[in-house]
């Protein structure tokens, strides 16, 4: 069994299926390695969202297999080999599709929640 991660009071569990969207979105601004993507999600969400490595790496490899992202090995500035992912053309299409699905979901959720509040 994995060790329990330390408790972060402000953390929100990622909704199932949203990690793919976040990865694709992050890579839209240029190639990144795994650590870079996790940091981008973390800082981009003001430390609220965290991509668990146990989800992030399977997701990266799955997206790579789906050919939405491509990977290559590069040497970093301090002479270390890192695996860098970038968005493919198919990935860009997928990103658009997932974005619009997400927006529909937000709208739908907002409709219901807003209605309740009124």
């Amino acid at each position, binding site marked *: 069994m994995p*060790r329990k991660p330390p408790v972060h009071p402000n953390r929100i569990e990622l909704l199932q299926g949203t990690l793919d969207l976040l990865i694709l979105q992050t890579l839209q601004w240029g190639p990144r*390695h*795994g650590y870079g993507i996790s940091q981008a999600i973390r800082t981009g969400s003001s430390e609220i969202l965290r991509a668990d*490595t146990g989800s992030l*790496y*399977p997701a990266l490899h*799955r997206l790579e297999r789906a050919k939405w992202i491509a990977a290559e090995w590069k040497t970093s500035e301090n002479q*270390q*080999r890192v*695996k860098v992912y970038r968005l493919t053309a198919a990935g860009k299409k997928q990103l658009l599709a997932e974005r619009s699905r997400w927006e529909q979901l937000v709208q739908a959720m907002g409709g219901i929640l807003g209605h309740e509040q009124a």
Partner: protein
Amino acid sequence: MSKRDRRLREEIESHLRMAIRDRMERGESAAEAEANSRREFGNQGLVEEVTRDMWSWTWLEQLWSDVRYGLRGMRRNPGFTAVAILALALGIGANSAIFTAVNGILLRPLGYHDPERLVVLLNHGTGPVAPANFADWKAQSRSFDNMGAAELFGPDLTGSDRPEKLSGLRVTADVLPLLGVPPAMGRFFTPEEDQPGRQFEVILSYGLWQRQFGGDENVLGRHIQLDNKTYTVIGVMPAGFQFAPFWATHTELWTPLALGPRVAKRGGNSLRVFARLRSDVTLERAREEFAAITARMERQYPGTNRDQRVVPLKEKVVGQIRPALLTLLCAVGFVLLIACANVAHMLLARSSARAHEVSVRAALGAGRARLIRQFLAESLTLAMLGGALGLLLAYWGVRAMVRFAPSGIPRLETLSLDWRVAGLTLAVSFLTGILFGLAPALQASGQSSAESLKEGGRSNTGGARQRVRGLLVISEFALSLILLIGAGLMLRSFLALQAIDPGFQQDHLLTMILSVGGTQNAAPERAQQFYQSALEHVRAVPGVLSAGMTNHLPVAGDLWGLPFWVDGRPLPHPGEEPDGAFRLALPGYLETMKIPVVRGRSIEARDTATAPGVVVINEYMAQRYWPGEDALGKRITLDNPSSSRVPTWLTVVGIVKNAVRYDWAAPPAEEFFLPYLQHTDAMGHYITLVARTKGDPASLAPAIESGIWQIDRNVTISEVQTMSAVVEGANAEARFNMALLAVFATVATLLSAVGIFGVMSYAATRRRREIGIRLALGARPTEILQLITGEGMLLALCGTAAGIAGALALTRLMAKLLYGVSPVDPLTFIAVPLLLTTVALAACLVPAFRAARTSPVTALRQE
């Protein structure tokens, strides 16, 4: 570690390094940064594992890890595993064994070149052919590449240390070449050698070559003595070669047929005709042509060409055994299905116990496909282990079958497990694994993980799951019932066969064949003296009550028929003469067999060659030809009165009870007994001795044999057996089929009983809480008993109904295997379901009693 694994580790380690560097830049110490980064990262091994799951190409590796996982699970549940593997092994093993038989007997080619084009030409539907017919067919047909004929030949081999009566065939020069198997040594006969006077050449089987000639490489050109004539060995056939594949299956030598002037004979049907279809002619086309030829010949020679047929050789060889094998194949298929259903039960029960584990795995990110694969890997592992054990069982099963099977089954001795069977076993095991693994896998993976986790592994009450299990029980029951009904019908049929009164008394009878072919007594006039003095010697052996001799025993041997004409009746149309089985008998034969004389007298010593011709007929013949009259004193003749010479009339002096002639179960037909001394020329150079003994007949064999050898050491004695063994041989196939079906049906019933027991136990356990509440609210234990039993019996009754419907549809297919019982025999169709329902009741009662004894307190506290 594969390259891809190394890459993944490198990727993850670079992640950690970057995290550590970031933390150090933010001012943490190296040790702190490393510890925190690792903690934040989580379990590195697990991350690697779940990531690896995303690589499609590793499915084999995953399969292996799934298999290992399954094996670990099996080790934890040895009881479950053993039962499941055993059930599967029984099902798979039975299938492999029976398929071996089907493969070896029905599917495998005959061992000749292009066997599909070989045919047999038959007379009167199934019978042998007259030489002139064969000659006409051969001359007139265009559909065949080649056509040849063969005739039985049973010579005595003498001049060696071990005189021996051999089984041989006389064949025309065309027969062996048309099979397309070249001799291992030497050559075939030439057409010139297939002439009277030149026919003294012989081709040996591999077995005879090994046995009598020690596999001598220089056997070609050697001279051997067959029936006191010198033959030259010109060839040896390869090992495993068999000809003929039916009728004369134990043939060990071939000599030329040399028909000579016999070729003009339209009587004396003794030939079997073999032919090879031309490659551009279909069987239908050949049949049309053949029908035209025989129709023409029937006009020319009326009565000699009725019901002529072209039958594929393979059909002739395996046609008899096919229904039995297909029935057995069906039966083992059912057994396997039942075994699958049973293992599926067990897996379902286990999968509910494992619901919690499955939920945890699902929560950790295992997808549904992954879970299904996990379950299938486990069931496939089970199935493969079952298949391996099953192959072992099949190996033993085939050996047992070869040993205990009746001798009439063609090519049985060649049966063995081969790669085809192994391949089929593998395929069957695989399909089995999928079949019984899929339902539990789908159910287990389909359940909502949140729900199971919430329940915290408490027994789960899936209605769908219970429905599937109910259906499994119903189908198991239906299949078992069909099998049991089939076995019941075979049993009834077998009992009916056993109950047949053969018309003679089979116990305490010893029989053997004496052959004088290789002695100085081979000539008919000397042979009869020898037979008579041999009979005297045998009667003098202590323990022998009586003895007699005949040309052929009933049941065993051949059925020799002759047309006859009744005195004072209009001449029948040629070819429509009545026909009867005839036996030449020495005085004492009918008495020794205890075939009772109903009226008149038996064949006696006074019926010599010079005495008036007499005949003893059976009751059937008396009633058929002299209905309402006294047949005694009436006359028949065996000479065609329409031919010019004066017929020899035979007076009926006795009427005996009908006895079995050849087919054990055939209805009675004409049979008559002739004094041997009045027909010595009709006897071959061998005779069958029967002796009625006081004690065990087999124990007297050595004394009788040595008594005969005292008269002539060169006499060969063969087929020494008791009459009971002969009769047993005649019913061996029915007994064998019945025994196999009974074994399969028993296994099926046991498996079904285990199945219903398992399901009811599970249902009772699942409802402990409910039962506890009922009991607490005042339900009596008998009501609980009824509740649980009722539920089980409902399933059993549904299964019974389905089974009866299935059996009604299927037993019709085994009608050919049955004797004296209808395929929808009411007794069987009532008794067997009752029996099976009783078994079901017993299987339900145990869990029901257990449930009824539940203490409400413990039941409620437990949940």
